[in-house]
């Protein structure tokens, strides 16, 4: 379809492709046609009519955003009546858009902050608009130099500015109804929280059903703000600041690897994050965490400013030299297994590499892990069956999938952007979505089929599906032979997964299991996205193995849209494993007990390596409690310790002899520390992250906080190592460290920091003088990253793994599945498991958003859904007022008991609103609010009468 064609625009010959619309073709050739409703990230809409042009042989003035181009087309962009139409449209727009300054003859004499004494209403001035000097309408009007003494009457809409929702301010007096926000919400995000209201001259943007954003299903992703050409939609924080500088880096909130442009104001603060339009992983999208969750970096008051050393029970300021000396001296006496190191999953690859090198060579300990690495089983199964513990494809390949199976993963909240290709494809009708989850996650709303197993029995369900595929001959025999060879052991192990047993174990009807298996096996390219949130740690390895076998057995490997995507919480969890920051593996996944590999690393590092495998994060804390682990070095990011998966930390930390914490803020963790070292945030350092799609992307230094002596962790670690007399830490610049790592990890062999910068893709744009959407302005020079394995400096990355064979093809022994029944321990005190969910629109529940100040609170009646049998057993009745208390004592809910025949015995359901989270983050005083997103955990609860 995409033919190379030649067209002529304003006398200039342009060579382009036929799949573009005219406005894009012109823009790519450096010719600017004004537009307001068009946005390169979205489908053309054809509403603003600013981009009208004249085409020879075509009657009238067609809009160039909706005009397909043909070979030999001759276009005039600046001829009458096209320019006249544009002029009239601007006149019309300004007749309802405040423009006092725009049409003022003195505007060029005015500074941005001047107070004007003329008779223009304050509301009509550009200088009182948060988007002043960032406004596409203003730029376009200036660009269009036609006289601005419009004879049309001006009418201000006099609407109240909506400031009560979290994160956003909406001033519809400024709206030009280009519907970019509505389209972004619908077309890109699949949320449809925004819509057009009324009609004719009264048409405006509103929320669906006229409710608050929270109720309308808003996810607060900020996509609408990013595309708004005027000041109608703005971030409420730093609303009035203008950027003086921008820099691109990678978001640190989750492993999707969204590239963002960060705006920095003249006071050196990071004020806005704008997702990069042409970035490979996020394509102009972000989520509430990445878009709004960076403000802690500016938090000067709570940042650690100098190193702190505990003297006589009190943390006192110290110089860097003193602190390093103390740390080095004390560490020297804790070498070996009594030393442990925990590094934040938000550390860069280089820091992780240095950290594990430090632990192994200097401290001679394999006790190195990331606190988020609490469920290694999610990847171990993939490692065993396929070869690489990593996703097999790319994020946006999911859009090509004809079927996606999501297993116990709260994708929209934890790896938000990954859900977009799924939601888009489901809404386009090209994809079936099967969700396996006991909880109600947002994707269940999009699901073709939602299997709701008893919490923790996902493995049985996956095995059951595999057995159906095996029994019904839905296998891809060719793929099985190609990838696995002998499958007798696997087939034999499936015997225990009969439909009857699986159905009894999971509580899912056998027809549903068969239906899911058939859909998955026959739809076409199918992918599996999984986090195994509800699965016990012991069963995770087997469950991920089952997932790997499901993909292989149905031939879903080695092509776009087919593959498996394990989901982890941390931004650089993939990098952590790749870099060997794992107690079991050296860099490049060499087991620490592999003698050959160890020799090689000993040679490269010039030091002896510990022989015994190390302790993982949980085990380290256990060892600390038992007194076996005496010194702990915690690098970065207290937040990772807050989600409760590591249990109560304080007693473990108290038992330590020596605790060093390198962190951005003082935290509950540093209260136990003997030495606290101030750390830089991810926006203050260079380095690389490896995303869940194995994409290595460069971080750049966006800004430098002025009030602190903080140093990047790679620098801190290297200083301690050098002070302890270790060699090999002198050249610790990220570039050099990555080069050293690349020399030892074959998959990274072709990757260097410079290459990542050099291979940025540059999009041709018309002159920067031309008005353009912010995202377009920022989208020049976009790093595409490199997806490992990338064996040579001239090799491209590999978007899809296992095109022909598995990475461990030589390994013929692959563990089969094993039945692991769930032990249901009857806890008399907390007899229910709470499987709560997050769905916004619930027609049966009336809810009210109470707005007070900057906080939104949702008021509604909670319903505890339980099965009638359970109700009888526990003396509860339909409609009874009750209280639900969780075992950890973290939360209690008040509500009404409702009986539901479909509820599993022993499971209580409750629907939490997405908005509850938005409320919490907005109300939080904490410097890093975004990390406090409550997880949708399955927890034991008790329901009692009130």
């Amino acid at each position: 379809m995409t033919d190379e064609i030649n067209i002529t625009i304003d006398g200039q010959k342009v060579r382009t492709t036929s799949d573009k619309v005219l406005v894009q073709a012109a823009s790519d050739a450096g010719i600017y046609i004004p537009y307001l409703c068009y946005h390169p990230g979205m489908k053309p809409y054809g509403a603003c009519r600013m981009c009208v042009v004249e085409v020879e042989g075509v009657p009238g003035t067609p809009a160039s955003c909706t005009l397909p181009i043909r070979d030999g087309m001759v276009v005039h962009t600046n001829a009458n009546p096209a320019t006249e139409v544009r002029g009239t449209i601007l006149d019309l727009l300004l007749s309802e858009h405040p423009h006092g300054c725009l049409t003022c003859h003195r505007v060029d004499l005015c500074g941005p902050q001047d107070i004007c004494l003329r008779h223009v209403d304050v509301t009509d001035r550009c200088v009182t608009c948060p988007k002043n000097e960032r406004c596409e309408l203003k730029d376009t009007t200036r660009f269009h130099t036609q006289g601005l003494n419009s004879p049309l009457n001006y009418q201000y809409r006099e609407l109240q500015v909506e400031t009560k929702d979290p994160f956003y301010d909406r001033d519809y007096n400024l709206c030009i109804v280009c519907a970019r926000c509505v389209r972004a919400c619908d077309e890109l995000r699949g949320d449809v929280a925004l819509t057009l209201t009324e009609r004719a001259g009264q048409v405006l943007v509103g929320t669906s059903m006229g409710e608050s954003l929270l109720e309308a299903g808003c996810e607060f992703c900020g996509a609408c703000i990013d595309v708004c050409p005027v000041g109608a939609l703005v971030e409420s924080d730093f609303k009035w600041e203008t950027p003086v500088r921008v820099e691109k880096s990678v978001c640190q909130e989750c492993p999707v690897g969204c590239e963002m442009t960060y705006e920095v104001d003249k006071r050196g603060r990071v004020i806005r994050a704008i997702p990069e339009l042409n970035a490979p992983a996020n394509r102009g999208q972000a989520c509430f965490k990445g878009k709004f969750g960076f403000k802690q970096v500016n938090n000067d008051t709570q940042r650690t400013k100098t190193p702190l050393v505990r003297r006589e029970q009190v943390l006192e300021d110290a110089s860097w030299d003193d602190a390093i000396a103390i740390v080095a001296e004390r560490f020297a006496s804790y070498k070996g297994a009594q030393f442990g190191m925990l590094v934040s999953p938000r550390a860069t690859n280089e820091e992780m590499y240095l950290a594990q090198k430090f632990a192994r060579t200097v401290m001679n300990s394999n006790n190195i892990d990331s606190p988020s690495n609490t469920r290694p089983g999610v990847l171990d199964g993939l490692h065993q069956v396929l070869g690489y513990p990593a996703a097999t494809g790319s994020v946006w390949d999911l859009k090509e999938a004809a079927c996606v199976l999501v297993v116990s993963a709260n994708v929209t909240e934890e790896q938000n952007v990954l859900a977009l290709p799924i939601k888009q494809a489901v809404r386009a009708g090209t994809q079936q979505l099967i969700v396996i989850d006991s909880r109600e996650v947002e994707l269940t709303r999009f699901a073709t089929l939602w299997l709701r197993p008893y919490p923790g029995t996902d493995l049985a369900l996956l095995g059951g599906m595999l057995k159906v595929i095996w029994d019904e001959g839905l296998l891809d025999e060719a793929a099985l032979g190609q990838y696995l060879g002998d499958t007798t052991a696997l087939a034999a192990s499936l015997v225990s997964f009969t439909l009857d047993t699986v159905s009894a174990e999971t509580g899912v009807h056998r027809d549903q299991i068969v239906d899911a298996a058939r859909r998955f096996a026959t739809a076409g390219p199918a992918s599996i996205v999984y986090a195994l949130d509800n699965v016990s740690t012991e069963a995770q390895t087997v469950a991920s193995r089952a997932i790997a076998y499901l993909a292989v057995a149905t031939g879903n490997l080695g092509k776009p849209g087919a593959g498996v995507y394990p989901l982890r919480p941390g931004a650089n969890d993939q990098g952590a494993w790749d870099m060997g920051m794992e107690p079991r593996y050296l860099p490049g996944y060499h087991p620490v007990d592999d003698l050959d590999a160890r020799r090689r690393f000993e040679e490269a590092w010039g030091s002896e390596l510990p022989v015994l495998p190390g302790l993982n994060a949980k085990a380290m804390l256990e060892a600390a409690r038992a007194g076996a682990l005496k010194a702990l070095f915690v690098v970065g990011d207290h937040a990772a310790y807050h989600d409760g998966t590591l249990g109560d930390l304080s007693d473990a930390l108290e038992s330590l002899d020596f605790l060093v914490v390198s962190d951005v803020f003082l935290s509950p963790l540093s209260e136990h520390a003997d030495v606290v070292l101030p750390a830089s945030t991810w926006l203050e350092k260079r380095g690389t992250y490896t995303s869940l799609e194995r994409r290595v992307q460069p971080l750049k230094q966006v800004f430098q906080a002025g009030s602190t002596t903080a140093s990047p962790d790679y620098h801190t670690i290297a200083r301690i190592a050098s002070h302890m007399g270790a060699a090999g830490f002198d050249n610790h610049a990220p570039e050099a460290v990555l080069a050293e790592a690349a020399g030892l990890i074959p998959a990274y062999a072709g990757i260097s920091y410079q290459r990542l910068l050099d291979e940025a893709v540059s999009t041709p744009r018309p002159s920067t003088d031309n008005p353009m959407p912010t995202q377009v302005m920022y989208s020049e020079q976009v790093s595409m990253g490199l997806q490992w394995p990338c064996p040579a400096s001239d090799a491209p990355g590999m978007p899809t793994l296992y095109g022909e064979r598995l990475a461990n093809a030589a390994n013929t022994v692959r563990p089969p599945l094993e039945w692991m029944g769930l032990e249901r321990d009857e806890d008399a005190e907390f007899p229910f498991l709470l499987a709560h969910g997050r769905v916004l629109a619930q027609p049966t529940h009336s809810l009210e958003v109470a707005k007070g100040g900057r906080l939104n609170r949702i008021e509604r009646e909670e319903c505890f859904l339980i099965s009638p049998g359970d109700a009888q057993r526990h003396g509860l009745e339909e409609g009874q007022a009750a209280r639900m208390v969780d075992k950890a004592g973290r939360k209690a809910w008040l509500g009404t008991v409702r009986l539901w025949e479909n509820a599993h015995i022993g499971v209580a359901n409750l629907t939490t609103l997405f908005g509850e989270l938005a409320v919490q983050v907005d109300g939080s005083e904490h410097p890093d609010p975004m990390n406090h997103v409550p997880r949708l955990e399955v927890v034991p609860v008790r329901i009692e009468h009130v």
Partner: protein
Amino acid sequence: MTYAFQHLQREATQRWQDLHAQTWVRIGTGLMGDAAGARETVAAMRYDVRHAGLSATVSEVGTWGLCYAEPLVDIVTPGGPRVLYANVGSDRVSELVATHVTTGQPKVEWALASVESDVPGLPRVENLPMMRYQVRIALRNAGHIDPVELLQYVARGGYEGLDKALSDMTGQDVLQEVKDAGLRGRGGAAFSTGTKWGFLAGNPAPQKYMLCNCEEGDPGAFNDKTVLESDPFSLIEGCTIAGYATGASNGVVFVRHGHDAPIQRVRSAIRAAYAAGLLGANILGTDFSFDMEVSLVGESYVAGEETALMEAIEGKRSMPRFRPPFPAAVGVWGKPSNINNIKTLAYVPEIIRQGAEWFTGIGTEKSAGTAIACLSGHITYAGLVEVPFGVTMRQIVEEMGGGTPDGKAIKLVQTGGPLGGMLPSDALDIVLDFDEMAKAGAMFGSGGLIVADETTSVVDLTRNLIAFDQMESCGKCFPCRLGMGHLLEVMERICTGEGRPGDLELMEHVGKDMRAGSLCGHGQLGFNPVASALKAFGDEFRAQMKGHGPIRITPFVGPRSSRRGAQLEEETPTSQVKGDFVAHIQPVARP
């Protein structure tokens, strides 16, 4: 001829004879009949007939188009004459039952006309002023048959066209026949129907849609609704033939929510057609299959625009899409589609049955066949007339419509709906013809003719039209959304005597760029009312601008463009609110 159709026709003939074997009372209960109280007439008739112990069939039928005479009762006894009675309220039913229905003797003093037979003292129906020039093709069955009874439709020649197409012609032949007949779209744009079908026929996709547009939101137009409620099978047959000619697989009848009688009748007619094997798989035992359904939309004028209509069918906000891609390539649900007006399709069965040559013999050279005009406003005989092209506007308005009811002079005729134009009285000799009318700046459009007498203020009428157009803009494209508001604002201030120098030029300036820049026809034609009013009545405007003072504002219900407008209407008593746009149904004085 297919065997299935032979059988069906035999059955139909029998049914037709049975109906005439006893007294048959037909009462028009369309939109207009309803408005005049025909429901009560029907109920009373059924009650009285039953209580008198008579064996008579009482049918609800469509309309003759003689709105001024509604409720219209049509009585025929076996062997007796067929007589139409005008303005039969329920209070007159007992008398009619006692006389004509029981005795077979027409009650001449209440009668309007006789049909197909002479009755002393009564005119033949075709000699009524309003019927004078009529040639009925699309309305061939209106008033004659029970619209939802398939056999009655077949008895009057229905489905012969489809049967002929399926047994003797290929799809290509049908397409050629329609092309040769010179049939042009009756929705307003007057595009060649055969050519349009050709676009769809040329698309090889397996699933294609034939959409039938009965949005009909024009004030003063009610002909599509009439076809649907008087003879839905003609549409269904026409649509099926169109499906055969273009290879379409599905038909969708798109009706505005609230047109109750048309919706109910077309739905039951579709059910009946399915039951008789005239829709669904293997129609009339052939290989051809075609499905039809009805889709409703909320009130929105722009939903009648073909791409907005597709959005509405998909359940979205009805706002036009840009073109290209044209519907024949990407239409409803992304499938190739073709949108036809209801009337256009209603001609098709007769064209196939009687041949292209027969059709081109009617009307003018470029505009073949007939046109349905809806007369309303200041006119004696309001209603619906089907006349061959070539009749003059004066003949329609003055002779058929009987001029103004109180003898005042006609000032103008507003044509083509609210986006159309105005024909001043001295231009009424214009021949009814798509191209001639377009040349005169008064498109025929969907056929609404609103007559205004000499007391009408053109300025106010224009403002009222603009108010409608402003309110009905969908709000998508900027020139229309904003431009219409400013046109209305200017018109409002002219009406209140606050017009400013340069206002007329301002309107022209905005109007010109709306025409050039708007996305769909609504904005492109939005300035038409002003343009044509200025052309014919420029002096009246200029006089109004020169300190003529405020004129009476005819209020208009809808969202306001300006605070001033809202204020103006607040000052006007709400009793006037229905405005000039309701079809003028005025009973004639009782004899």
